[in-house]
């Protein structure tokens, strides 16, 4: 046992040493520029967040977050290569330098932020766990779910949140665990459980996969906080700032009414906030090590946050998600970005 421990410790130390030596080498921005593209880690297929379309192009809000960073650096939103990663691999891929940033539906938690050598560069989607129930059981609120059988996907934080929630409320539940999300839906569809639980962003999509979507409804309760956002390696503050501010620029652009359609006209705007955002005034880009017009490029090529949201997960997409708490702070949501000045 002791031997095993010392081997594991040795491995950890060795990997730590390599990670440290890596940090002293060229900065991430220099590496990315030299490669000529951004290497971005995404999921291996999650509707609305990152999924290949008919032609094999990646689409989704996480994918667009990567494209925005590429647009900021190269002025070309297509200068990204995507690495599909499983949940288990994602952090190693980032730590080892295989990818430059991780934009993979990853929840920002203290443990991850503090102990994995990573930094969360913001939130591009506020998610939370919810319930999909069979209408026949006649429940309107999650507090009435005592004794319910629940379909869950194994190995996710969903499972832990669920037992936390039921324990806190002093309720019992019977879990039925499945490996993949399709199986979970099949199980629910076949009546093996009364309730299906998953991130709210996925519930609508899962519901549309049911043989009769009208037979099920989504409960209003949200039982966990899942702030999802891009992640970078710790120890390169410039790169951390770039990813953080590209996302902030997109959110500020929505607030200021700058869209991909009017980005060129807005260059003539008299509003000093818009001038700083699009780079016609001040030297915001230089402070980050980016071209002066990076904000203009980001908004023109990828769009502001609202466009990115509507295109991938918004009400007109198959996911059909209302903005909810992801609306701007000025419109009743909590999407708030520090000012570009």
């Amino acid at each position, binding site marked *: 046992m002791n031997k095993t421990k010392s081997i594991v410790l040795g491995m950890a130390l060795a990997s730590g040493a390599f990670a440290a*030596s890596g940090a002293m080498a060229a900065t991430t921005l220099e590496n990315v520029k030299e490669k000529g593209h951004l290497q971005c880690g995404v999921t*291996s297929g999650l509707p*609305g967040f990152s999924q290949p379309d008919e032609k094999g192009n990646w689409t989704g809000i996480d994918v667009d977050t990567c494209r925005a960073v590429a647009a900021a650096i190269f002025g070309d939103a297509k200068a990204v290569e995507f690495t599909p990663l*499983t949940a288990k691999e994602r952090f190693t*891929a980032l730590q*080892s*330098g295989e990818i430059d940033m991780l934009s993979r539906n990853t929840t920002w938690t203290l443990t991850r932020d503090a102990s994995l050598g990573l930094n969360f560069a913001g939130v591009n989607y506020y998610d939370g766990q919810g319930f999909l129930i069979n209408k026949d059981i006649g429940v309107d609120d999650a507090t009435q779910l005592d004794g319910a059988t629940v379909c869950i996907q194994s190995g996710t934080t969903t499972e832990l949140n669920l037992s936390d929630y039921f324990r806190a409320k002093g309720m019992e539940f019977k879990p039925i665990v499945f490996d993949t999300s*399709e199986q979970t839906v*099949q199980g629910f569809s076949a009546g093996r459980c009364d309730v299906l639980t998953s991130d709210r962003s996925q519930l609508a999509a899962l519901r549309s996969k*049911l043989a009769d979507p009208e037979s099920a409804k989504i409960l209003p309760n949200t039982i966990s906080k899942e702030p999802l956002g891009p992640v970078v390696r710790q120890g390169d503050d410039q790169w951390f700032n770039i990813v953080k501010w590209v996302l902030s620029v997109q959110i500020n652009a929505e607030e200021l009414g700058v869209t991909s359609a009017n980005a060129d006209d807005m260059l003539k705007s008299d509003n000093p906030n818009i001038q700083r955002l699009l780079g016609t005034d001040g030297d915001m880009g230089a402070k980050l090590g980016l071209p002066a017009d990076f904000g203009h490029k980001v908004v023109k090529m990828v769009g502001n946050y609202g466009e990115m949201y509507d295109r991938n997960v918004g009400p007109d997409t198959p996911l059909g998600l209302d903005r909810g708490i992801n609306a701007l702070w000025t419109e009743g949501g909590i999407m708030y970005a520090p000012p570009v000045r």
Partner: protein
Amino acid sequence: MTESTMKPPKKALTPVKWMREHLFSTWYNSLLTVVVGYLVVTSVGPLLNWALFDANFQGADASDCSGAGACWLFISQRLNFFIYGFYPDELQWRVDIMFLLLAVAFVPQFIERFPGRKWFGIFGMTGLPVIGYFLIPGGNFGLETVESTKWGGLMLTLILAYIGILASLPIGVLLALGRRSEMPIIRGLSVVFIEVWRAVPLITVLFMASVMLPLFLPEGMNFEKLMRALIGITLWQSAYMAEVIRGGLQAIPRGQYEAADALGLGYWKKMGLVVLPQALKLVIPGIVNTFISLFKDTTLVLIIGLFDVLGTVQSTVTDPAWQNVAVEGYVFVAFCFWIFCFGISRYSQNLERKLDTGHKT
């Protein structure tokens, strides 16, 4: 043909007699026939309805699927992705050439008396991988580079399986010879290699290659994930192959070795000309078994985020624009695998028949 080897006369049976003899010979056989017949009749109809008569084959998007039967439209819409993965559209001709060459090399093997089919086979083992090595990744002869992260779908499955099969056979032969060698160091190393690699599951090997290995390598020395997976699969597979071949080596009678020695043949000539040709022929079923299981094991690369044909299907069946198309997707994958595995199996039976020298009883 002498009288003693003559076959018994054929029994000519009328259909009714045949049925009585085979289906209704005793009361319990009759009962089984009725029950099984009922199950077949009740299940085949709905299955055909689902797969063919009520199915949707044509249309432009998800709304053209009625939902009454299978939505094959989903497969045809995504076929390009399932076959080529992220390989750029305008460069897919390079992959098509490889598919064509693969067919040219192996289709003749199924046709008896095809002129020079042996040479086609040899080309498949030597020329084909070399051409593929230059053509698929590009980067030379003025071909545009296509990073291995863009390879996917059926093409990736075939690359993994083909290289795994092609590389593991010679390594396996060497390991098997090493394990039976009289030199203690070589024997020891072979035994350790085989026992270590054979004792770990492929999933562990792949995880090690994709998750742990990058942490130990210095920054900047990243070899591609695909390369790491390929090396892992090949080493793992060659350990299995070695044991299959060792079984063949052990089946060769001592007299064969001694006869070769008596002829004054050196070690490599003895093995290459006398022992291995006989040993390999004996274990063709075992080798093919290993090949087929490797072909199917390649789907495990899914867990390290490589998109083989199963991975491409799994990543797209969750698309909310379509109804539940998971069954269609998996049926398609099963069909792809069945075609190739069945092909390998038929080919090996062909080979066995051709090489048969009357040892089989």
